[in-house]
């Protein structure tokens, strides 16, 4: 574990994230322009989708069935475990519990990308169809948490509208749409653009993106005092529990060490892109500071710095 952790810590990807956090802590005004940050995010997601599709085209469709079903099941469990812990252990109200559960039932796309990159770097690249699994994991997670909230709070008429937004959101369009494009593309045509979406350009862009993620996460650190110790414990414990669950699911589904690591990392992660507006619109009395601080200031850094190597360790134990 020590050696794997070191590999992760001495990677420019992790170090750039730490630099971003530090820049924020010394109150530097540095930050990537909003549009550049969004553009990098789009590029990274689309690249992953494309590459996933190209890989999938080489595989047979059959191999994806079991992992898909198991990932769907995992997607249904994660919001429930989150909600239960928040209500029972944390004693939070219904809205706040459901709101945070929607974040922990969804997936952080950046954690996913970092895990994909880590797995490839360990010479155990994940399966090509991982982006599909992300889509299957993300969607029921948000839906179930919002439904719990809506039911308990007395029905919101907005759930349909909001689910449309989640399903057609940037992350899914780019990952699933990118997979379709990659799947259909002629191999020679793909070869001509492939270096732009892979290798050093992809990883270099990821470094820049994580620099800004550090700034964004660092901005949230201030709120930790306000949100209290339970949330810190929750953000880390939930990551480890869901990471273990995800690793187990990956092993059962027959994924390799790389794929299992990535599924575990996805499972351990919490959304800060898709979930927040969905929760804001359906559960307006949930305090957004709580859910965003937990996912951005605790779970995300934990996963990037120690989580992913840990899930790799889980995967090495559980696979085969």
């Amino acid at each position, binding site marked *: 574990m020590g050696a794997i952790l070191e590999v992760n810590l001495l990677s420019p990807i992790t170090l750039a994230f730490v630099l971003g956090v530090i820049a924020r802590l010394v109150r530097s005004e540095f930050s990537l322009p909003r549009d550049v940050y969004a553009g990098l995010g789009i590029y990274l997601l689309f690249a992953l989708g494309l590459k996933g599709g190209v890989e999938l085209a080489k595989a047979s469709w059959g191999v994806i069935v079991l992992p898909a079903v198991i990932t769907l099941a995992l997607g249904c469990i994660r919001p429930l475990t989150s909600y239960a812990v928040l209500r029972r252990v944390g004693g939070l109200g219904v809205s706040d519990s459901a709101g945070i559960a929607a974040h922990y039932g969804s997936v952080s796309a950046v954690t996913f990308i970092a895990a994909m990159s880590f797995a490839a770097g360990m010479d155990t690249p994940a399966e090509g169809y991982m982006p599909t699994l992300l889509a299957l994991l993300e969607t029921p997670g948000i839906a179930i948490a919002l439904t719990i909230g809506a039911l308990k709070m007395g029905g919101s008429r907005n759930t349909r509208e909001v689910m449309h937004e989640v399903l057609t959101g940037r992350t899914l369009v780019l990952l699933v749409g990118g997979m379709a494009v990659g799947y259909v593309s002629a191999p020679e045509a793909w070869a001509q653009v492939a270096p732009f979406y892979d290798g050093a350009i992809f990883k270099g862009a990821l470094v820049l993106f994580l620099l800004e993620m550090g700034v964004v996460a660092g901005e949230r650190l201030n709120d930790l005092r306000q949100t209290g110790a339970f949330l810190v414990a929750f953000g880390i414990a939930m990551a480890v529990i869901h990471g273990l669950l995800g690793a187990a699911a990956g092993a059962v589904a027959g994924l390799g060490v790389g794929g299992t690591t990535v599924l575990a990392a996805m499972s351990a992660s919490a959304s800060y*892109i898709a979930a927040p*507006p969905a929760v*804001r*619109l359906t559960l*307006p009395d949930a305090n*957004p*500071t709580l859910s965003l601080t937990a996912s951005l200031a605790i779970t995300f850094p934990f996963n990037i710095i120690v989580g992913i190597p840990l899930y790799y360790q889980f995967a090495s134990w559980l696979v085969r």
Partner: protein
Amino acid sequence: MEPAVLTRLRLVTIVGETVLRERLTRQLLEWGATGYTVTPSSGKGSRGIRTGDVPGEGLRIEAVVDSSTAERILSGIAGLYFEHFSVIAWVSEVQVVRGDKYVRP
């Protein structure tokens, strides 16, 4: 050029969270506005929730309307959003050329 004939109307300004963009503009038209203008904004208010706590910048929506529509908009906004959302609204008097443009027939 002949002097423009001016009509006295109301300008309603709403400042709030970006997630509400679709809803607020749809409702403005339902409540009787014939149009609206949106500008991006950021800010700070009494609620302690900074712009950006919820994703997206804030927004600032203006609508020129007659006084009864203004009333309707203000009480609508107050009823639907004041409790849980970072939304505020104010109204002022303005004069426009061709006032019929701003009143639903």
